[in-house]
């Protein structure tokens, strides 16, 4: 007996393959028989902007003086065909998030925050609300497969139209809004009975493929007298070809959303396993635009995990014209705020990890239709927080651009960047730091 106690014991060891999260998911699946649905974006680590660094100016290039020398941040979208292109003061826009997924207060706050800094917001699956139109100086109206709430009156009120083909969180997937969030108002806007699970189709009902899309775009332009910029939004999957086809179909602006992009409710298996990280998608997209002679003529907006001015600057340096933010904007409003920790605990989670946005129980009053919960969000104060955050991102991007000697954030270029990992170097098409090696640069996508 005692002889054994001297033998060193192997400590309990978890399998890397069957780690605790995997085991828990197997048990959950076995107990319920249904896949896990959640909000938010990819939670696993994927190559991202963190893997890139700016070189800054020194001997061979000179920097611009902070605060004194101008560094422009404005961006004009929709210059290709639209009679009324959009001018934004910052290249950071608010991504499409539906009323239904978000409370009316949250939508209003997004409009207030964005308008304060001179940028745009975007509707979502479920149509346009008066609060949102009223508070958004520049509003992009999404044209989705479900066409919930789609009507020509709102279409004419919009400043731009965004045809949604896919989302980074779920390229190839439709939408869903579970019954808990289908309140009377949401149901009425979508012409659906209250309390049922609302499924959104994954394909448009009246067109398939790029040739049809060209005709669809012509129709929307004719309806709106060629005034409004038309965006086409795709999830990052085959960016070179998708962007080329969107340009061919007549888009003014292309929106490219990476796999980290947030969603209101999608299967976890989809969020974590389908699509490309945005880092891997920007260069092929820009290449497609360049090959067609359309870079900067058809503007590129990228999204998926953008958090800071550094991310903005990196996305622009890789060739984007602007970025869009979803999750970060919600956090600025107050999503996952530690002040509600007790309530997150009661929901079996913790501030920072809460992602059951589809259940409509959000303590912060953002991803809910519950009147008491949504009343917690003050749209004016939340809008102010978002405006502050957007200003910080803009200032940060300017700071980096000046350090690289650029008088406009659009002058940032891939040559300003290096990568910290071989993967990021290959994906972003910039050299591995300290080398001149860009892995995989032998052409072709």
């Amino acid at each position, binding site marked *: 007996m005692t002889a054994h106690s001297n033998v060193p014991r192997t400590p309990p060891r978890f399998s890397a393959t069957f780690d605790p999260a995997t085991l828990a998911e197997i048990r959950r699946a076995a107990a*319920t*028989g*249904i896949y896990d649905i959640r909000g938010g974006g990819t939670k696993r680590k994927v190559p991202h902007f963190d893997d890139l660094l700016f070189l800054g100016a020194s001997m061979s290039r000179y920097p611009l003086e902070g605060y004194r020398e101008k560094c422009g941040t404005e961006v004009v979208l929709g210059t290709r065909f639209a009679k009324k292109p959009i001018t934004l003061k910052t290249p950071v826009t608010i991504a499409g998030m539906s009323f239904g997924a978000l409370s009316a207060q949250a939508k209003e706050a997004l409009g207030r925050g964005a308008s304060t800094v001179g940028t745009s917001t975007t509707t979502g699956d479920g149509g346009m609300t008066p609060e949102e139109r009223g508070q958004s100086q520049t509003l992009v109206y999404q044209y989705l497969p*479900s*066409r919930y709430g*789609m*009507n*020509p009156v709102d*279409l004419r009120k919009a400043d731009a139209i965004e045809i949604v083909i896919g989302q980074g969180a779920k390229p190839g997937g439709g939408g869903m809004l*579970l*019954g808990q969030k289908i309140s009377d108002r949401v149901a009425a806007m*979508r*012409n*659906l*009975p209250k*309390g*049922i*699970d609302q*499924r959104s*189709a994954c394909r448009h*009902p*009246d*067109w398939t493929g790029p040739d*049809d899309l060209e*005709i*669809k775009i*012509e*129709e929307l332009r*004719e*309806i*709106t*007298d*060629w005034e409004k910029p038309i965006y086409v939004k795709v999830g990052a999957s085959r960016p070179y070809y998708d962007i080329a086809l969107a340009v061919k179909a007549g888009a003014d602006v292309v929106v490219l959303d990476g796999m980290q992009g947030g969603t209101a409710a999608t299967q976890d298996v989809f969020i974590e396993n389908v699509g490309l990280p945005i880092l891997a998608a920007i260069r092929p997209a820009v290449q497609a635009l360049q090959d067609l002679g359309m870079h900067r003529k058809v503007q590129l907006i990228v999204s998926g995990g953008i958090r800071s001015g550094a991310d903005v600057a990196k996305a622009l340096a890789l060739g984007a014209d602007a970025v869009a933010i979803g999750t970060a904007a919600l956090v600025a409003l107050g999503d996952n705020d530690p002040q509600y920790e007790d309530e997150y605990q009661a929901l079996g989670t913790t501030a920072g990890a809460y992602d059951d946005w589809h259940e409509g129980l959000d303590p912060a009053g953002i991803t809910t239709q519950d009147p008491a919960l949504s009343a917690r969000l003050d749209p004016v104060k939340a809008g102010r927080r978002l405006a502050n955050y957007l200003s910080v991102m803009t200032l940060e991007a300017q700071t980096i651009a000046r350090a690289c000697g650029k008088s406009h954030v659009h002058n940032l270029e891939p040559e300003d960047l290096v990568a910290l990992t071989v993967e990021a170097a290959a994906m972003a098409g910039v050299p591995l730091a300290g080398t001149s090696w860009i892995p995989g640069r032998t052409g072709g996508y």
Partner: protein
Amino acid sequence: MNAISPDLTFDLAATSLRELNAALHAATGESNARRWRVLNPNGRHAVAVGINAPLTVEIEGHVGYYCAGMNAEASVIIHGNAGVGLAENMMSGFVHVRGDASQAAGATGHGGLLVIDGNASARCGISMKGIDIVVKGSVGHMSAFMGQSGSLIVLGDAGEALGDSLYEAKLFVRGSVKSLGADCIEKELRDEHKALLAEKLKAAGLEGTVDVSAFKRYGSARQLYNFHVDNASAY
């Protein structure tokens, strides 16, 4: 003499589509030029789209995709066949095609009446949200897919998977139905449904010519309204 002022004629062989649609958008309900004629459409797409006034537009020939798309208030009559997405997302008014219609006729329509004298192809009334559609001939597969509200009335036959994933749209078919889609079932045709049918058929100009009791009614079984694991094979 016609009480309405002379017709306004647009010959698309000589005038651009842009001019036609811009003129239609600029017209107001009060303008006295209320009957518009469109000649030589020659399969052009997006003819007479986005009208927002009680005009009457007669199109002499075949049209391409999305004719009368998002129509509000206007009456659009097509003396020919129509391509994909005829009267898509119509809000109100009346669209009448004298020939056949291609796929997705009346798709996502919110209101108004669409009458198709001939046959409609696949996905007629897909995702319909309040529109009434009367098809004198037959409809193709997946018609009224995810139909939310409104009615689809088919005097002929329906193809496969009628009413798949249906919400609350009401479907009536006089002829045969090749198959019903997921969650679509036959329902009893009661007097209130016969009255509804009679009203819609009257609006379509078929009053007294069709026996409403010859129709079968189909609707949602409402089994897919809230996810249940035992229905997983239907998802």
